[in-house]
């Protein structure tokens, strides 16, 4: 990570040029439910790419999504997509990854749940969160 000042200036200039394409990190507590769902779906693409150490063009080729669209997904340009478009794209990815497949399965099961009493739903949400954090630490 030792870089000369000249290299640092070049890196900063490159970031300035790509300003609009960059991932936007913000306080997620202000986001709507729809946006949070979209972020969660986009996150699966980034997770897939990071864990499998695959480049975007490789993934794009594999699942047949145009590279610019995939780039927008991994940079969380959520305004450019609807939830159903993201699910459709994630279904394509699920063909190559068991984890994504099971994630979609869970997503489907949760969507199929009947409306429960508030306390029951809260308890269920807590259990899902706890289980998820336990598995992510394991």
């Amino acid at each position: 990570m030792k870089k000369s000042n000249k290299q640092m200036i070049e890196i900063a200039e490159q970031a300035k040029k790509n300003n609009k394409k960059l991932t936007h990190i913000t306080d997620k507590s202000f986001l709507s439910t729809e946006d949070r769902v979209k972020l969660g779906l986009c996150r699966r693409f980034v997770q897939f790419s990071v864990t499998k150490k695959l480049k975007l063009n490789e993934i794009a080729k594999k699942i047949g999504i145009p590279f610019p669209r995939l780039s927008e997904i991994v940079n969380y340009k959520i305004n450019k997509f609807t939830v159903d478009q993201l699910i459709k794209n994630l279904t394509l990815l699920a063909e190559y990854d068991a984890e994504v497949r099971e994630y979609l399965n869970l997503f489907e099961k949760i969507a199929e749940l009947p409306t429960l009493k508030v306390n029951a739903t809260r308890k269920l949400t807590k259990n899902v969160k706890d289980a998820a954090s336990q598995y992510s630490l394991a």
Partner: protein
Amino acid sequence: MFTIPDSRDIVSKYHKRTADRGLVQQIILKKPIVLNSNTITKATIEIDHINYGLNKKTGTLNKKKRTDFSINDIENFLALLDGDYIFPVRHRKRISRFQVRIDCPVNNKFYGKQFIMIFETNYDKSEEIYTITLFPGWQL
């Protein structure tokens, strides 16, 4: 010219004479962050580079401050990354470089304004994050 170090857990502090970017501090994060499934506990922050910026013509630190962030403020920025998965803009050898637009979480200092943060992680030192720079993004 140089920023006065904060009174907190600073693992090491040194002037990088070779690159001359002023004070570089390595800190232990008060609260570890999880980025791309890696738990990050340490951060190396080029605090003078962040606050002064580099002059495009001379390549040295500017004389006038552009921001006045402390190490704690930068830690607040880093805390926003917690739990996220971010796609690196570049991956070379063991180093991944990230460039993000990030909303300033620091009260009374550009709160809510957009900054560009550039940082790197090393595959072999997954507990560490190296903050290259952070500069105002709304002037671009």
